[in-house]
């Protein structure tokens, strides 16, 4: 059976540009047999907790013991590792990501690969939102400066995007050289292994034309291809809600909205077989989706509190603490008493 993971998916938390709640998306994805799903809302993480909880509930419903909260140990390098371990057995892995608005109105999709990526992305989003808060509580459209992005790319994976991406934009304008330049910039920023050339197919001639160029660019740059469906709603019939939301975003009635709506109603979560049929000429793009999902190991389960590192001269933190305790105890309770013994016992309990 073909496997496919949707890596570009808006929830309703992309304000007026997504028609489904994270829970619905998770439910639908599970129905379709997805092993993972990325939630990539616009300039934000807002949907992440509900997305994670939905995935967790799903896992609990399928196999209750898998989600039992394990005990944690101090100093464990990957705190929450227990849940992390158990996630492997979750039916649907909730991957985190976001669509970032860059200068010039282009979008960039990043997925969180590692914990550090999460930290970086959080920092980026926080900064963008702070910058976007105008005077007297007003807001301007968030724009992420390139320099800020460049300083915070560690642990993130980038997808080139469709028409809204820098490369798609250049291709639509017939600027092949510009597209190549944009792609090489992206590779420079994220590193060769962390950039995927994204193909979308919504039965659109212009889009398909761009795909041809993208195929050529990817081959020349030696970059992997990845298929996405740029999902805006879970089920096909939800397109109506999305159309209405689009009208609301443009503050227009359905009669005025015209070509601002999407021309086709294809941006739902598609079954892997359906996607495979669409991308039958580039099967590797389908395979890559699973590889990317595999790569993006980080989930909100990794968010357990981690103690700050403490310089310990080669000992473990536990040894260090025990040693310090004994040293102090010796000083305070010169004669060895039963109290000191109790402290050792106490320490062991921590």
């Amino acid at each position, binding site marked *: 059976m073909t496997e496919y993971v949707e890596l570009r998916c808006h929830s309703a938390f992309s304000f007026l540009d997504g028609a489904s709640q994270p829970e619905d998306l998770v439910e639908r994805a599970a129905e379709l047999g997805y092993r993972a799903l990325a939630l990539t809302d616009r300039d934000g993480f807002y949907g992440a907790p509900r997305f994670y909880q939905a995935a967790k509930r799903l896992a609990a419903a399928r196999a209750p013991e898998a989600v039992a909260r394990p005990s944690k140990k101090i100093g464990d390098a990957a705190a929450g590792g227990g849940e992390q371990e158990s996630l492997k057995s979750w039916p649907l892995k909730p991957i985190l990501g976001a669509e970032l608005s860059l200068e010039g109105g282009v979008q960039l999709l990043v997925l969180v690969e590692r914990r550090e990526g999460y930290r970086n992305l959080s920092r980026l989003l926080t900064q963008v939102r702070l910058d976007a808060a105008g005077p007297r509580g007003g807001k301007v459209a968030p724009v992420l400066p390139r320099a800020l992005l460049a300083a915070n790319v560690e642990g993130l994976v980038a997808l080139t995007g469709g028409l809204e991406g820098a490369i798609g934009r250049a291709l639509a304008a017939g600027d092949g050289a510009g597209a190549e330049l944009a792609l090489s910039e992206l590779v420079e920023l994220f590193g060769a292994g962390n950039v995927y050339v994204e193909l979308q197919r919504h039965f659109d*001639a212009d889009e*398909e*034309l761009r*795909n*041809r160029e993208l*195929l*050529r660019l990817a081959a020349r740059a030696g970059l992997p291809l990845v298929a996405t469906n740029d999902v805006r709603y879970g089920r096909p019939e939800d397109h109506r809600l999305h159309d209405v939301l689009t009208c609301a975003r443009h503050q227009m009635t359905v009669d005025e909205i015209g070509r601002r709506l999407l021309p086709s109603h294809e941006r739902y979560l598609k079954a892997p077989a359906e996607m495979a049929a669409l991308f*039958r*000429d*580039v099967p590797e793009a389908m395979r890559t989706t699973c590889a990317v999902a595999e790569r993006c190991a980080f989930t909100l389960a990794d968010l357990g509190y981690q103690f700050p590192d403490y310089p310990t001269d080669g000992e473990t933190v536990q040894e260090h603490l025990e040693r310090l305790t004994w040293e102090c105890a010796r000083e305070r309770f010169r004669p060895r008493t039963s109290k000191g013994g109790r402290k050792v016992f106490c320490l062991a309990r921590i």
Partner: protein
Amino acid sequence: MLPARSPLDLAELRTIVQRSTRALPFTPAQTGLAAIDEALGGGLPRRRLTELVGKRSAGRTSFLLAVLAAATQRGEAVALVDVAGMLDVRSAAAAGLVLERLLWVCPRNLGPGPEDTPPGRQREGEWLRRGLRAAELILAAGGFGLVALDTGEGLPRVADATWLRLARGAERSAPPGAVLLVASASRAAGSFAAVGLELERGRVLYSRSHASLGPDAGEACGERRPEGLSGSMRVNGAPMDVERMPRLAAGAGARSREAPPPLVRGRAVSLKVARSKLGTPPGTVPVTWRLR
């Protein structure tokens, strides 16, 4: 005090000034396609009837829109008498036509229209008659740089006297002098055209991954018209043999790795200066029309 003058006087004055500055008042209208201009000796002749003939998909409309676009970009007012209502506004805009400068007249009434005319061929004849009359009116109005008349799909049957009137209308058109361009599926204006252009179909261009096919691949591979249809479909009373169809591209069922679906990108045609009363030597220019 100067007596009030009408704009017409100024137009006359302008003509006089133009004549006196040695620049011919009726420089040919450039088509925007340099090689064609070259073959035409500078462009389409003003105050003359030029006939453009091309069958389906031979680039008649593309050429028409290109010429109209070039004229509107020069700032001229142009008119298109569109007998069959074939104009695709998006194509026109893509061709660079400044739509505000285009006077579109569609004798085939699209909405509720003049009183009913008989159906079928007769009705088409009526559209054509109205179209010819409209072209005459526009020429008489003056001030248009280009008046194009597209006679539609059918074979235009027009009396010689009508062509003569049209040609005269063009000759008398006020400055800048109108190019009268008549585009049809077959020759119609005959000897009333000062220049006759003929279009020939060339290859169809596909996206990179597809070999472009010959001028009339269908004709090369089989018959010009299918002999009939099989199954439930019957056309012209006869069944068609589907198996004899050429299998050239998508859906050909390659097992190993399917080719990406084909994309039509454009069409190559050749434009022939077939006849000219203006001393233009005959010649052929290849043109590629690309989808934008």
